[in-house]
């Protein structure tokens, strides 16, 4: 499949390039835009792998929701990159060390994959047999909602707890804030909202209701 290889190199090259530009870009908004391009091309790689459901979910969740919030925050905050870069040289060695550890780990994982072919075959056997009748989506659904449904529910509970925690930490009831109550507005009628008063010429009503 020459076409697949061509598209693989295209997507991979753009992903790597835009990943690099995310770090190099001077303007934070440009960095986020490059990040979006990287996500998008990663989705393209997923499609090439035959995981079209994952690809679409990647675009919907990461590009469509998470990156929009990223862009939002970066646009709203006036990030001062000069001060952020001030300690670059001082922290460069730590950063390089973290990067090196990650690189070594990646190489080790890839090496076991390539060298220990047996373990890969064992891993593939555990996955549901890719019967041609079952689509990608269906296979994922069976795995998540049937085989591992308790784990799935547990993950959902953890996310729920995290969400409630975030709300508890940030929710404040301010005093003196007038909120709109649509039902109260709709329930008003002339009888309760209007008071007709008969004033003699020259007479005024004070806010207290007293006539003068």
């Amino acid at each position: 499949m020459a076409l697949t290889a061509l598209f693989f190199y295209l997507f991979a090259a753009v992903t790597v390039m835009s990943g690099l530009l995310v770090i190099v870009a001077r303007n934070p908004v440009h960095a986020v835009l490059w990040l979006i391009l990287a996500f998008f091309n990663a989705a393209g790689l997923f499609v090439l792998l035959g995981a079209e459901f994952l690809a679409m979910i990647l675009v919907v969740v990461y590009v469509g929701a998470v990156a929009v919030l990223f862009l939002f925050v970066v646009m709203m905050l006036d990030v001062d990159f000069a001060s952020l870069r001030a300690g670059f040289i001082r922290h460069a060695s730590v950063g390089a060390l973290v990067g090196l550890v990650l690189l070594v780990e990646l190489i080790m994982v890839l090496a076991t994959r390539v060298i220990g072919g047996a373990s890969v075959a064992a891993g593939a056997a555990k996955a549901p047999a890719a019967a041609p009748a079952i689509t990608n989506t269906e296979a994922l659904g069976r795995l998540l909602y049937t085989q591992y449904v308790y784990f799935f529910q547990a993950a959902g509970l953890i996310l729920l707890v995290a969400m409630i925690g975030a709300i508890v930490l940030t929710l404040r009831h301010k005093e003196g804030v007038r909120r709109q109550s649509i039902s109260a507005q709709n329930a008003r009628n002339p009888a309760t909202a209007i008071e007709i008063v008969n004033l003699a010429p020259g007479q005024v009503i004070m806010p207290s209701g007293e006539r003068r």
Partner: protein
Amino acid sequence: MFPTTFETWWDYALWLALTVGASLLLMVSLLVIIAFLLLMDRKVWAAVQLRRGPNVVGPFGLLQSFADLLKFVLKEPVIPAGADKGVFLLAPLVTTVLALAAWAVIPVGSGLVISDLNVGVLYLLAISSLGVYGILMGGWASNSKYPFLGALRSAAQMVSYEVSIGFVIITVLLLVGSLNMSAIVTSQQTGIGTSLGLPNSFLDWNWLVLFPMFVVFFISALAETNRPPFDLPEAESELVAGFMVEYSSTPYLLFMLGEYVAIVTMCALTTIMFLGGWLPPIDHWLINWVPGPIWFLLKVTFVFFMFAMVKAMVPRYRYDQLMRLGWKVFLPLSLTMVVVVAAILHFGGLAP
């Protein structure tokens, strides 16, 4: 129609030629149809307000959209001095290209689709969720207050209503049991009508069985495409023209084109999910003889007419009302319906 096995370079060439030809055909007919739908939008709006609308260019003003196109293309594009030039020019392109890309998976007739993806609905959802970037980029790159405010409003609005659109789509998918757009249409051949012993008709389509979701989807589609009464991103009484303030000439044209393509895409999605796609409304030999794409076009035009009527009749929402409607009304309603529909399908033994 398309070759599925690739052995020689000839197969690749044939596949490429057929795909490019089909895409071009779809795109050109789509753009011509949109030119007339744009005119219809203005004519309906005018008729509601007892005006004549555009009636100078061509008979009944039929060529108005083409005259507008020429005007936009021939004008001078102005790029503000403080603008981020690259992003500024990229934004309208992103909007238009993404809006047009959505049409790759929309079946206009039985088997008449560029790419019959088995995750077609998700693809549409993904592409429409990317639409917000054109607006955000345009608003930010203009380096001006009103466009920025418009872009922020638009992003918040589109993200909010995407949630309810997603849930509505899930209820339809539960009923259909497939993510394929063609399968969604063909599953509507049978439904409430046929289960009552009637012949195939418009009563089988999803709009009847999922009527509340149909209404929620229609309103969310208005909000998602920034149509009135939810056109706050470009509210001309507050923000001049929102994120498009600094745009002129062809970039403006591209923004507007992208917006209208997105609207027609939403009309097509409504047609496919709720109004039976290319299926004829009643089972009669004369009506069955009319080809499917014609029915599809008629239904899309009908939904677009409803969009135009809403624009003409409903006053604009306030921003907090818009957010309240999205998060406090539509989200709980559509989420409850997902649970209810799933429960009925499961316990009623109706799941596909």
